[in-house]
């Protein structure tokens, strides 16, 4: 059998292999259109995120591994207390897959912007947090995510390959894509593609780059983080998330724990919702395109005159 090419195929293959897998959705079917073919193991509850999570907990109590789907902001926020209380507290193996996280909600507006999702999900003890960079990474990670007996949150992406991946997926393991000492760029999710573009610009300008694709934010790959933090002249945390509670916070916690004080440039959404638009325009507007990332890093390395 050929390797699954889409998320839906990957999930269907897992469901065929594992009787415990049930697929649930709060009427968000865009990426799982064919899964009603699973019959009674496909459960669409309608636009009821809270009930979906409670029911997923009930199914998990009976030995199932529910893989549930909803738009990331409504999944993590509207159903938050159900996730925390019914899934997190008893540590049930419910897999929460959030659609259009980060910048991927594009022009929907702030209601749909899941840019605090990493903060709230990693606040739940035992919750694993996965942020694949592209569809290939998501598909290759899915069997391990479903096999884990921990609750998990997955930032969904259907993006084309961000880079040529060099390491197979493993829970809690980062992928290091460039190993030079100089600027350490730490990132996750679809912004990896922009980070790789920035790396090329910087390399052409003679700036050595260490590029880390975190993949899993909880549990985080601490050795990979420490490697990146210790060697760097400048550490860059790059993420489509509010400044607080995401990767920057993880790096800050790691630095405190290990008594490190590197110079850190935070490239994220600060404390503002982003201007709704198509993705390329959002990236440009937020200064998160590859070119702008490179410029901002160069600025941080060699500050221009204040009057310029």
């Amino acid at each position, binding site marked *: 059998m050929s390797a699954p090419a889409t998320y839906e195929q990957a999930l269907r293959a897992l469901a065929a292999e594992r009787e415990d897998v049930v697929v649930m959705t709060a009427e968000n079917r865009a990426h799982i259109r064919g899964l009603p073919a699973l019959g009674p193991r496909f459960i669409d509850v309608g636009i009821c995120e809270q*009930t979906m999570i*409670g029911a997923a*907990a009930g199914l998990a109590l*009976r030995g199932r591994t529910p893989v549930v789907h909803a738009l990331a902001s409504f999944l993590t926020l509207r159903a938050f207390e159900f996730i925390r209380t019914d899934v997190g507290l008893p540590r049930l193996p419910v897999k929460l897959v959030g659609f259009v996280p980060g910048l991927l909600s594009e022009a929907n507006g702030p209601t749909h912007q899941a840019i605090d999702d990493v903060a709230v999900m990693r606040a739940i003890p035992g919750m694993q947090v996965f942020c694949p960079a592209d569809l290939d990474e998501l598909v290759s990670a899915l069997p391990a995510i479903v096999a884990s007996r921990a609750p998990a949150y997955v930032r969904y992406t259907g993006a084309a390959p961000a880079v040529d991946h060099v390491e197979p997926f493993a829970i809690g393991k980062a992928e290091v894509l460039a190993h030079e000492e100089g600027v350490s760029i730490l990132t996750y999710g679809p912004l990896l593609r922009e980070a790789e573009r920035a790396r090329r610009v910087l390399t052409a300008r003679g700036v050595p780059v260490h590029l880390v694709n975190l993949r899993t934010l909880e549990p985080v790959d601490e050795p990979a983080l420490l490697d990146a933090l210790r060697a760097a002249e400048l550490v860059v945390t790059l993420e489509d998330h509010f400044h607080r509670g995401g990767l920057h916070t993880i790096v800050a916690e790691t630095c405190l724990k290990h008594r490190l004080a590197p110079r850190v440039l935070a490239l994220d959404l600060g404390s503002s919702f982003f201007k709704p638009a198509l993705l390329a325009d959002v990236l440009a507007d937020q200064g998160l395109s590859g070119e702008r990332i490179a410029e901002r890093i160069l600025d941080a390395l060699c500050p221009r005159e204040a009057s310029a």
Partner: protein
Amino acid sequence: MNALPQALAPPRPAEHAELEALALRVREHCLRLATGGGCFIGASLSCADLLVYLYSRVLNVRPDTLGDPGRDYLLLSKGHDVPALYATLAELRFFPVERLRNHLKTTDSIYWHPNRAVPGVEFHSGSLGHLLAVGIGIALDIRLRGGRNRVFVVLGDGELDEGSVWEACLVAAAQRLDNLVAVVDRNGLQANCRTEELVPLEPLPAKFESFGWSCRTVDGHSFADLDEAFSNLPARAGHPTAIVARTRRGQGVGSLEDRPDRWFADFTAGEVEALVRELHGGGPSRLVSEGRMVR
């Protein structure tokens, strides 16, 4: 169900008189938990008959079949009435009665809301409006496996203010879960207020029916009524069933009955003894502790 030696099964009350006697013992345990930190005594006394009846007559679950996937499930969604659940479970030997003395001790898991570390508790609660959804998941899996067992979810009437209850009602009907039964402890009081004065729920049976459920209304303190209400379930094939049990907060102890200020209580040892005497037919208790607003 797994075939288990009959000798392991605890005796289950059969006659109404036995149920009355068991309910009296359960109420006495509840009163004895309402000191040294206290408990939600009003809510506990209101659902004591329901829980005694369900565990004695309805639920296909025993201490020795707690791990059996074919057992019936009871989920206590309102949660704060857990003294009645713990007392019932203890009396039916799901755990030793002596364990009730661990109430509020950090060395055990017996506190103001249910913890599933205690044998017989299927899931924790405390946050209102969760367990009907959890019950849906359990009922879905039972159906997936072709089981004939059922899921009973005990809801408070105040809890029905939560939108998630009605969301779950819609989903349960959409999923045609006729192995799911909601039991509403309809005592007419929520925390400090009368439900009909704060957020009116009536006509409650019509609400359930309009959500695609069958609904039966009964006297929640009459075992004869409960016999009728819980026979021939589901009430309608392909539909979940709601049983609205009309009850009284504090039932069984006149000094505590239907009192908005006696939801939670932390009595003195002397008051508890007076209340126990009252429960067993003595005169009204002289209560020095003031009624409390908790929420």
